[in-house]
């Protein structure tokens, strides 16, 4: 099948492959470095206490900041976590412990995978159809629910994976000591998988805090503090970035967008790095 080729030729091709490999990893890492560098350089001059704490204002008014958007993002992310974690954990426990091989479990797993692969803008569309059209107004709550819908399958699947990593011997010893199935799950299995679960939750939290698409037509945007969280449009940092950079010709607003981007990127990367280091140390 293989035609004879000279050793020199083969070695050349091999070295070319190595070169290309290093080229690609430098594209990947360089790309990330470049993006972070740009965000940092443009965002840092804008950052100040006032910028972080005062609410956003229409162009031209002095003392504008992004405090309301940051608070809105915080509220929505935390709300989404509260909504998504209990059912996610419960579902994961069911998949890993109780209904491992049942046909319902495989259907659920399939659905969770479909949800995970679903473009996030479709989640926004769905929440709009269910909540915004029925209640008649955009609200922070709708945004929260959209984020929760995105978070839920991720938590479900991580929980399942983490629980499956717990050795069966643990379960058997717990059951042999006379614990009920539920107690064994809660006190022994869940406890030994605790770090993994925390990592999963934190990473999905970091992911949704930067999500924009599902918020565009659920939470919308507002120049006020998130006062009427359940009834009024609520500002969020990613949507603010979008508004300020695509819909505004003004340099100062672009700069504010960069500042917000820096805050969000720093938060997301920090959570990622810290959880990864933490988890890595615990695993060994």
């Amino acid at each position, binding site marked *: 099948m293989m035609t004879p080729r000279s050793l020199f030729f083969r070695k050349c091709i091999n070295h070319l492959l190595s070169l290309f490999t290093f080229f690609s990893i430098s594209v990947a890492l360089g790309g990330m470095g470049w*993006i972070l560098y740009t965000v940092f350089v443009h965002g840092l001059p804008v950052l100040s206490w006032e910028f972080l704490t005062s609410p956003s204002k229409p162009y031209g008014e002095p003392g504008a900041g992004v405090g309301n958007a940051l608070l809105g993002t915080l509220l929505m992310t935390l709300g989404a976590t509260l909504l998504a974690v209990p059912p996610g954990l419960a579902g994961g426990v069911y998949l890993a412990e109780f209904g491992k091989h049942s046909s319902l479990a495989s259907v659920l797993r399939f659905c969770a*995978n479909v949800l995970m692969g679903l473009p996030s803008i479709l989640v926004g569309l769905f929440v709009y159809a269910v909540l915004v059209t029925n209640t008649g107004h955009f609200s922070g709550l709708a945004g929260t629910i959209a984020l929760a819908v995105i978070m839920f399958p991720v938590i479900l699947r991580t929980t399942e994976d983490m629980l499956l990593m717990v050795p069966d011997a643990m379960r058997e010893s717990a059951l042999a000591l006379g614990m009920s199935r539920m107690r064994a799950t809660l006190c022994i299995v869940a406890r030994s998988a605790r770090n993994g679960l925390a990592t999963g939750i934190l990473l999905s939290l970091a992911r949704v805090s930067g999500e924009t698409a599902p918020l565009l037509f659920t939470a919308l945007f507002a120049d006020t503090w998130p006062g009427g969280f359940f009834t009024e449009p609520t500002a969020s940092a990613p949507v603010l970035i979008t508004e300020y950079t695509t819909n505004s010709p003004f340099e100062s607003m672009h700069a504010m967008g960069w500042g917000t981007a820096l805050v969000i990127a720093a938060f997301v990367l920090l959570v990622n790095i810290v959880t990864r280091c933490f988890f890595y140390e615990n695993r060994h």
Partner: protein
Amino acid sequence: MIALLLTVGIFVQLSIHAAEAWQHFGISFLWSSEWDPAIDSYGALPHIQGSLMTTALALIVAIPLSFSVALLLSETPEWLNRPLSQCVDLLAAVPSVIYGMWGLFVLVPLMQDYVQPFLLESLGLLYMPGGEWLFGEGGSGFGFMTAGVILALMILPYMSAVMRDVFRMTPHMLKESAYGLGSTRLETTLYVVLRYGIRGIIGGIFIGMGRALGETMAVLFVIGNLMESPAGLFSCGTTIAATLANNFAEATGLQQSALFALGMVLMAMSFGIQLLTRYYLARTCASRGENY
């Protein structure tokens, strides 16, 4: 249970709200290319074409890159491997708005000032036969090529993570036998690792494809948002997700329904890709005798 309800719920809701548009335009909605709110005439063709084109471009750029990144990650020693993997994973964690912003303020001017003039004028690609057809009217820096590059960077970590795992699953015995027969590393990869894990690699590519297809923000910033069928690599256009993000908040009546119908098209596409991914990844695992 909630997972099941949500999945079914999303399907049902999208179909209910899209029903009006389907009734109005019928199946020809899919290949009508008009989009004019003034006369309430909508068609999905430019959006579908745009989505497919950005995805295809992103894949063309990302497949060789992620393949070799995965190769490097699976072959390097542990001490170098771990930080590198972590860095590549971090690339996936950066929010997509930030990619979009970077694209808008860094990549677009770069394409406009250097890359496009260089390719079109200096290399004279525009004047070669078919150049007009290939590149379209460009020069603004916005357009499909820019979107493709950004998407490629975004989907690279997902694809290389899957491929890396597949490469690692290749039994050492097989690789060592190949080396023992005098193969170079490239030949081992091509004839052993690639043969062994081809389904997993295809699965990884599908994962990247699903991501690229549904990505909204990064594309929205750089695509140019022109409701026309793609005219060339450097011309502006739109994708399904970008159209939704741009027009949905203001749309009412039939237009909104048409947007829901677009959402359904996107959903069908991503669902199809999901099925294929599952199929290929499950086949890979099944051929190893692992249960999945």
